[in-house]
């Protein structure tokens, strides 16, 4: 186990360094950052002054070294707008809203998908199963941000039950969480259903049925614990996917998180902030993967040796 932890830790650190390098070159390989930010018709002196200010006239290796040594100390530069505030501070201020939204979406997805997939998988071909398959398919065919707009039209504009934007109390998180969690819900239904289809033929399930145990008890006591492992293992992946998907949902619902911050930063051509958000979200995702892998290694000893 110890060697497994060390190996995964090293891998994660390497990946994080890789992300820093990749983002640095991604932004610079595609052109002069100055021309992205300074208006095309700005006088040359202004352009050069800006270049100087941003440290962009130093040789590339020097810039790279500066950038890397700051990044590993947790300094992700300063925003171009927002009165030059430190990017990290801006990001940390917005982070709780995004995590809250992603967790709410994940909770919605799990609470709907697992019971539905379980009920459907236990009785293939039944009405519940057809519903489960339909939900699974719907998750793959409905774009989340479009669903978000539909929910707004229906529940906020027409019925006036729920607020259409902002982050203000429990009511305001319902619509964005449903829209964001919908695709993941579809995937989880499919996964749960197919895992149940595999497990329900196992001897211990047949035995439980044979000794007269009620179907509900069999599902909850014998089937559910055995399909939990594949479900738990995709939750980490799901969560990072939700972090990415939240960009669109936050824009639709004006949710004050990292996603809408990223969209604003792109609109403002605030490239240091865009760079910092990308790095931050990636590092966050890598950490979550590391944690789920370690937790998974604890639960399932076979993986440690793999």
């Amino acid at each position: 186990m110890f060697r497994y932890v060390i190996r995964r830790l090293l891998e994660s650190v390497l990946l994080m360094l890789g992300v820093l390098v990749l983002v640095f070159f991604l932004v610079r390989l595609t052109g002069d950052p100055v021309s992205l930010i300074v208006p095309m018709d700005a006088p040359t002196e202004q352009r050069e002054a800006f270049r100087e200010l941003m440290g962009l006239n130093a040789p590339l290796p020097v810039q790279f070294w500066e950038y890397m040594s700051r990044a590993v100390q947790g300094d992700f530069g300063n925003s171009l707008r927002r009165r030059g505030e430190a990017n990290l501070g801006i990001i940390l201020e917005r982070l709780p809203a995004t995590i809250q939204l992603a967790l709410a979406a994940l909770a919605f997805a799990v609470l709907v998908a697992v019971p539905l997939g379980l009920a459907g998988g236990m009785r293939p071909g039944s009405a519940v199963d057809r519903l489960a398959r339909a939900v699974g398919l719907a998750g793959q065919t409905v774009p989340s941000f479009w669903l978000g707009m539909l929910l707004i039209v229906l529940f906020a504009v027409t019925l006036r039950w729920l607020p259409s934007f902002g982050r203000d109390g429990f009511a305001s998180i319902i619509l964005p969480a449903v829209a964001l969690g919908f695709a993941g819900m579809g995937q989880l239904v499919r996964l749960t259903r197919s895992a149940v289809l595999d497990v329900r033929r196992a001897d211990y399930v047949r035995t439980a049925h044979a000794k007269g145990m009620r179907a509900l008890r069999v599902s909850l006591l014998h089937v559910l614990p055995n399909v939990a492992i594949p479900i738990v293992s995709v939750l980490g992946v799901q969560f990072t996917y939700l972090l990415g998907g939240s960009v669109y949902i936050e824009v639709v619902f004006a949710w004050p998180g990292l996603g809408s911050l990223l969209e604003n930063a792109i609109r403002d051509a605030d490239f240091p902030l865009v760079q910092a958000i990308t790095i931050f979200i990636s590092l966050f995702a890598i950490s979550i993967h590391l944690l789920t892998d370690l937790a998974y290694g604890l639960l399932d000893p076979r993986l440690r040796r793999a």
Partner: protein
Amino acid sequence: MTRDGNADRGRMRTTGDPARAVTSTAGGRGAAPNDPADGNDDATSASLFSPRRLWSSLRRDVGGLTGLSIVLAVIAAAVFAPWIAPYGPTEGDFMSARLPPAWMDGGSSAHLLGTDQLGQDVFSRIVYGARVSLLVGGLGALMAVSIGVTFGLLAGYFGGWFDSLVTGLTNLLLSIPYLVLVIVVATVLGRSLTNVILLFGITGSPLFVRVARGEVLRLKRLAYVEAAVGLGASAGRIIPIHLLPNLVGPLVTLATFEVSAMIFYESGLGFLGLSVPPDVPSWGNMLALGRQFLTIYPWLAIFPGVAIAITALGINLFGDWLRDAIDPRASERE
């Protein structure tokens, strides 16, 4: 299977996918799929990909047939747009701007799905918009598969430093949340159709690198490949004749779902104003406009989304059938 499922890094590589094992061995010992000399007339020994076998399986699958019909209809809409759409995609008429759909109060039968704030016909723009979505989805997936298979094959076959490099880069690209990666790359590339196709072709490839490489690592240990190596066959012979045909099964299904995923992502980029230029009729651009007028003219946002959902439904139904048809283990479970 969408991207989120496949981003389950590492696990696929170490354990392999038992479902794929069945597919590939059934794919024939190096016999090229659709090889005319392969005796397709004999149903039992026919290749997994023989048109006759596939057609007889598709005929019995309502979902698959529905999916194929939808996909063909969308392709037809894209190809024959000028004959299907009653108006040009950018043909505006201020006299008939902001009309609701024909069946609503104030709607006009001249504009079935209503018009936008410039008086452009929503239905016509949706028909033309199919072009962008299909081009991005189709060419993007094709490019992702080509890049992915090339690097995955070479890395898996030759191993060594090249393999480490390719695997490292793949893991790196997959470690950045995909939707964020796409947004950032789109921002630096700028808005043009070519750039959007390139963007999805490149960012979509790591998935295929991973699957192709894993498959090659597994195939390399099979007796018929070892025999070929033992007989002195060169890599130039083994790769195209013994390995490549066996990759078709697992990759074709994955690529099908990837087309629908890319259509989704393209519309998302358009929605954020980062895809094709704003004057190009595309479903994503229409949704971006729809968002601005969401509370007053909701039809502007609703109909392009319906087009996306129907297209994705068609591709997914077709993909589900395809997976079952060329993956015997998956169909057994249903």
